């Protein structure tokens, strides 16, 4: 009860601040739309897809997972600014739940990601993408869990390193292989065996496969529940770890 209330308080403030800054709102919407409009036309020939709609079925889920990963991973920067301003320390002297300090922020990241995802999906519908609403909601759940995990991890790391200079290269080094080895932008179907072997160890690869299956309307595909389970377990682990950093962080 207290956890829910505290989480709401933190979330409410974070959303308020986000909406107050129109630049962020604009960037958050503009960027993915650019991907969709400028990058997607290259896909049909590249993916050898019979129609544009087929190409979107492969590309849109990948783009959404990409946004979820990156949207989350770089949230730590905002936290470092808050750390520097003394806002975190001020929260930590109150009896507020330490998990709420994390969850309130991560939830904002999840919500803004879902808003982005909805915008992209709607746009893609204009380009003849078709997906069942039930499958779509499950795909959003997958995205939410990914964003929850990556933002929690980013916050936890931010509290550990306490400086942008350390956070930026760290997050980039993590993001790059994760991105390349997940088949996010292009499916790994045609990849050589060794590359696929490595990708099997990349949880995001499972998440992308699951999301693609959902967009293809293939709910019964094992990749769906496997992807969801893997991401859910990692999200819980990330939240627990990061909340612990909030409890013990030293300026």
């Amino acid at each position, binding site marked *: 009860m207290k956890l829910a209330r505290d989480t709401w308080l933190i979330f409410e*403030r974070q959303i308020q601040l986000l909406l107050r800054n129109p630049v962020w709102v604009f960037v958050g919407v503009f960027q993915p739309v650019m991907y969709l409009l400028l990058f997607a036309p290259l896909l049909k020939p590249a993916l050898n897809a019979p129609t544009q709609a087929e190409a979107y079925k492969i590309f849109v889920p990948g783009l959404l997972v990409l946004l979820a990963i990156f949207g989350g991973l770089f949230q730590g920067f905002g936290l470092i600014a808050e750390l520097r301003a*003394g806002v975190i*320390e001020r929260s930590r*002297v109150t*009896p*507020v739940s330490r998990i709420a300090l994390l969850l309130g922020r991560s939830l904002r990241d999840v919500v803004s990601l879902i808003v982005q995802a909805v915008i992209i999906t709607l746009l893609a519908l204009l380009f003849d993408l078709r997906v069942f609403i039930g499958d779509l909601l499950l795909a959003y759940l997958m995205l939410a869990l990914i964003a929850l995990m990556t933002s929690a991890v980013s916050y936890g790391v931010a509290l550990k390193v306490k400086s942008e200079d350390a956070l930026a290269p760290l997050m980039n080094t993590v993001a790059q292989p994760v991105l390349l080895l997940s088949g996010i932008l292009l499916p790994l179907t045609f990849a050589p065996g060794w590359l696929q072997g490595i990708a099997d160890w990349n949880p995001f690869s499972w998440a992308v496969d699951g999301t693609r299956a959902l967009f293809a309307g293939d709910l019964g595909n094992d990749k769906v529940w496997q992807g969801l389970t893997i991401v859910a377990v990692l999200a819980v682990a990330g939240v627990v770890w990061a909340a612990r950093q909030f409890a013990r962080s030293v*300026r």
Partner: protein
Amino acid sequence: MIETRGLRKSFRSRAGRETKTVDAVRGVDLKVAEGEIFGFLGPNGAGKTTTLRMLATLIEPDGGEATIAGADLRKDPAEVRRRIGYVAQGGSTWDESTAREELVLHARLYGIGKAEAHRRAARALDAFQLTEYADRKCKTYSGGQRRRVEIALGIIHEPKIVFLDEPTTGLDPQSRAHMWDEIRRLRADGMTVFITTHYLDEADALCDRIAIMDHGEVAAEGTPAELKREISGDVVLVGLDTAATPQAATLLDAEPYVNKLETGDEGVRLYVEDGATAIPQVLRRLDHAGLDLRSIELHRPSLDDVFLTKTGRSLRES
């Protein structure tokens, strides 16, 4: 209200490849009574902030115990948090928020309901003369306005004790005087106030009792009057050229009426029983030795003299 026994904290810090241990606080025993303004006086790096952060549950002590407003710091930090307020040295407001938003949120984090939080925020804004700026973003505030918001944040939940880490650093003389009034008002409201400062006049004028802190230890504790009384007699300041100082120091230290002598940058400082009779003798002695003196001053012992005799250094110089 606060009682600490042997509170300790060291930090490991890395300088290049070596790890060094800094003993920031090495065994602090304190007793702070209810309803007093208690001051921590000490130079930079003395360990004031570290002690405060331990008492405010922000960092865990390496050793020692403390009871704060009846709650045990080690066993029940959550209860300690409920009973105290803390205002950090480095500020705690967010640029993009307004003072009112910050106050309401902070009150709500203490479990206060929405309507009541708004009422309290309005009252605090009024008390700290902030109503005019209440709905402007914090980044537009002056240093003094911002400091007042931060103090208002620290007491919005009406704690029994409030810790203020250097509440007046960076304020102009007028704002400092206002801040002192505001801190006295907190005491009048029945709050126990624990402040840190490196201003001698602040410790002297504002605090009911002070602890002098140096190198992580409490060097002396008492009311400002008590501490000054410990140094009996007067202080004579003899202004000298740097070149002449060592010789003058040796000469004067041998004089029977000089209880204690400290050399500084601008000359020597003599602790004597009676300044009025000592001055002519000092003048005669220096004249006899052919040493020119630049100035001579007589004053009652200040807290700086207390600091000097306890730590061997002047707070002004450090």
